[in-house]
């Protein structure tokens, strides 16, 4: 994979030329601190900006134009990246090489993208009240629907307990309590500061020439290069004396167990790869300890897995279990963590885990969005590494390093959402 950043442009340009895709993907990544005062606004903004531009002032006219461009896909998305809030604009457009008699599409697509980001539809210099009202209603319903997805809901509740004072408790899509009060003026203010202050990175993935990409990026010259965004006021890493145990009830069939663990290892650290292996050995794959011991050996769960967030420094363990099996499941999970800490795992297990991780990295690079996500992790995580470096670091991890990383895992919050009755 080649990554070139020498082209002088506003947004930092990352061109990833490849012939393997039949469409071209363009991502514009806008990074800001994660803050209660702006997360909801930015989330609403991502909806409003995709609904109307100065040239295409309605959802219908946008859709019609994108259809005309052979079904170009335009989406916006928000995500939490450690102490930052990320707003992504994504355009995926067909490569005209594979369509008979088609006109060049990339430039047209970029012109549209530029319009969506920089020339929104405004009325008297401000966002349309009608569109804001529609998008508030849509967003509100999506926020409320989080409760309807019980696994996601339980995970959010766990995070709220684990990070009570930290902005990380917030949802990327914002908070319901704040949404209603967001005015058109307020949205405009947040939009303007987004253009002025966000760190902007542009990824172009596809069969694209350097000159074409440079031209594409110059459309966004309004952004100053090498902007640095201040971190949000995330609370410093801290460890509880004893884990926080919380149980909540809901009218559900299966208990959702979510365990949040602190780990003071971050993407920029030299032990990152070892921590990645440690987490994968604990619960990343079907040969991992959680899958084997909670599911295969004891038949307690269908899913039992762990996930490592290297930007915020924590591990989430999750499993769906019968309410009556709570104590047993928790004991088995705790035992798996303790076993990891004292190095109770074999070289074969570690080697297999490393092989699977490398496979996973390479597979992720087989999708345009996956490639960009992997590389962008390095930008937010303050250590830019190539895929090859990443892979060789995983391969170099030793058993001792895995145990050392595991030794730092501390259970912080044990959250259990379960039915009102004992196992109906």
């Amino acid at each position, binding site marked *: 994979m080649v990554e070139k950043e020498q082209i002088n442009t506003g947004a930092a340009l990352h061109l990833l030329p490849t*012939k*393997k*895709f*039949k*469409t071209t993907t363009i991502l514009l990544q806008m990074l800001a601190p994660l803050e209660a005062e702006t997360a909801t606004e930015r989330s609403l903004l991502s909806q409003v900006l995709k609904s109307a531009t100065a040239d295409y002032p*309605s*959802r*219908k006219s946008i*859709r*019609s134009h*994108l*259809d*005309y461009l*052979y*079904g*170009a*896909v335009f989406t916006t998305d928000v995500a939490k990246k450690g102490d930052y809030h990320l707003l992504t604009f994504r355009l*995926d*457009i*067909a*490569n005209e090489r*594979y*369509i008979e008699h088609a006109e060049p599409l990339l430039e047209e697509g970029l012109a549209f993208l530029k319009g969506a980001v920089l020339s929104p539809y405004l009325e008297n210099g401000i966002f349309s009240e009608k569109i804001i009202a*529609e998008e508030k*209603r*849509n967003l509100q*319903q*999506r926020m*409320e*629907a989080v*409760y*309807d*997805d*019980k*696994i996601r809901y339980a995970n959010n509740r766990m995070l709220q307990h684990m990070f009570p004072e930290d902005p990380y408790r917030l949802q990327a899509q914002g908070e319901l309590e704040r949404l209603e009060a967001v005015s058109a003026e307020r949205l405009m203010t947040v939009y303007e500061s987004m253009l002025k202050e966000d760190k902007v990175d542009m990824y172009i993935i596809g069969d694209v020439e350097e000159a074409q990409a440079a031209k594409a990026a110059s459309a966004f010259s309004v952004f100053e290069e090498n902007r640095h965004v201040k971190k949000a006021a995330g609370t410093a890493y801290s460890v509880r004396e004893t884990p926080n145990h919380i149980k909540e009830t*809901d*009218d*559900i*069939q*299966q208990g959702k167990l979510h365990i949040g663990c602190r780990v003071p290892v971050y993407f920029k650290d030299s032990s990152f790869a070892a921590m990645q292996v440690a987490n994968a050995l604990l619960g990343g*794959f*079907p*040969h991992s300890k959680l899958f084997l011991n909670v599911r*295969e050996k004891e*038949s*307690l*769960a*269908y*899913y039992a897995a762990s996930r490592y967030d290297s930007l915020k420094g924590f591990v989430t363990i999750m499993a769906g*279990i*019968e309410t009556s099996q709570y104590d047993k499941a928790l004991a088995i999970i705790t035992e798996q963590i303790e076993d990891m800490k004292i190095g109770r795992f074999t070289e074969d297990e570690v080697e*297999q885990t490393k092989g*699977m991780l*490398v*496979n*996973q990295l*390479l*597979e992720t*690079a*087989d999708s345009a969005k996956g490639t960009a996500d992997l590389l962008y992790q390095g930008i937010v995580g303050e250590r830019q590494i190539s895929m090859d470096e990443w892979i060789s670091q995983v391969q170099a991890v030793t058993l001792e390093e895995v145990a050392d990383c595991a030794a730092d895992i501390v259970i912080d919050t044990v959250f259990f959402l379960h039915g009102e009755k004992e196992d109906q």
Partner: protein
Amino acid sequence: MNTLEKSTIDEKLYYEVLDNGLQVYILPKKGFHKTFATFTTNYGSIDNHFTPIGGSEPVKVPDGIAHFLEHKMFEDEEGDVFQTFGKQGASSNAFTSFTKTAYLFSSTAQTEKNISTLLDFVQHPYFTEDSVEKEKGIIEQEIRMYEDQADWLAFFQLLGGMYHEHPAKIDIAGTVESIYDITKEDLYTCYETFYHPSNMALFIAGDAEPEALMALIKENQAGKEFPPAPELKRILPEEPAEAASDKKVLEMSVNTPKVLVGYKVLQERTGEDLMRYELAMDLLMDTLIGPGTTFYESLYEEGLIDDSFSGEFQVDRSFTFFVAGGDTAQPDELQNRITSLLETKDPAAFDSEMFERIKRRNIGTFLRQLNSLEFMASQYTSYAFAGMDMFDTAAMLESITAEECLELWNQHFHGPERSVSQVVKKKNE
């Protein structure tokens, strides 16, 4: 080995039907790190009533058995096949649908070894009473997980409302009760009947050498004995044209109600006719209610739908239906708007400019699908089982006319075959 070349999209497919009846497809994709392979049997949850291979009397098997079988295939004398793939750097998985069970792996090294493992484990059933019992607890938790998923429940409630008899109304995983009736012997019966190579297809996509791979696969298959290909005798109940129920409502712990409107379709097209029909119905639906239509955008502006709204025409072996819906604060009103548009058949609702644009949109969508090895494998296999060639999609789309779609509109959406499924917020007792 046969080849199928599509120069406009720069794709070339290699394929062959082996002596034992197995269909093999290889799609080389330059530049990809991974190889993705699926080994699929044309057998799923609806195939619960059949004459077993070598038997004379039809049998009925417990609900959820195809899915149970899928779980149990991963175990053999040596242990867990997940581990074998894992040691060879591959991630493996499987899924069961109404009409298919697919086993798959993806790997970025040791492709040939992994292909052999895939063929060998699926062609080697090994079930013991102990392991069958043990799996019941795991599948019970899988079913419980689905029981908390409102979208899943809304969908199966709709199928239950549409179908009187057809086994599509049965949950793919079965019920907690039905899976406890499954025995080792049942699993062998289903396996022997439906996992014959002549009822299966292997699809491989990735940076692969087709000749070498085909040779490897042939050698693997030549080393195994299979009885002569039997004619499958599946038994399907008679399904009336009208829906079993016009409306079902489920109360759950949810914030946002959901509504799905479904129309049952009885049709028996095959091959090219089927493909044209499916594409034309998709075009019709996109033109009437898809994003960008006046219908969709008005509902959005009125707050009747959000981004979760979608409509889909589903054609599967022995059953066909249309479904549309999503999250909404006003399920009754949304339901009325959908049925009224589809059943009133006001020609003004069919925008012919929109129709042409959607044809253009579909060309881009097709190219995007070629980026995904997973999509190609599953789609190509489904089409192949139905006697269709997926690569013909673009040309056939081009030839479909607005008149054709309007005629189909007239033939569908009458009312009696309609059913509605709602999930609403549970009232506090």
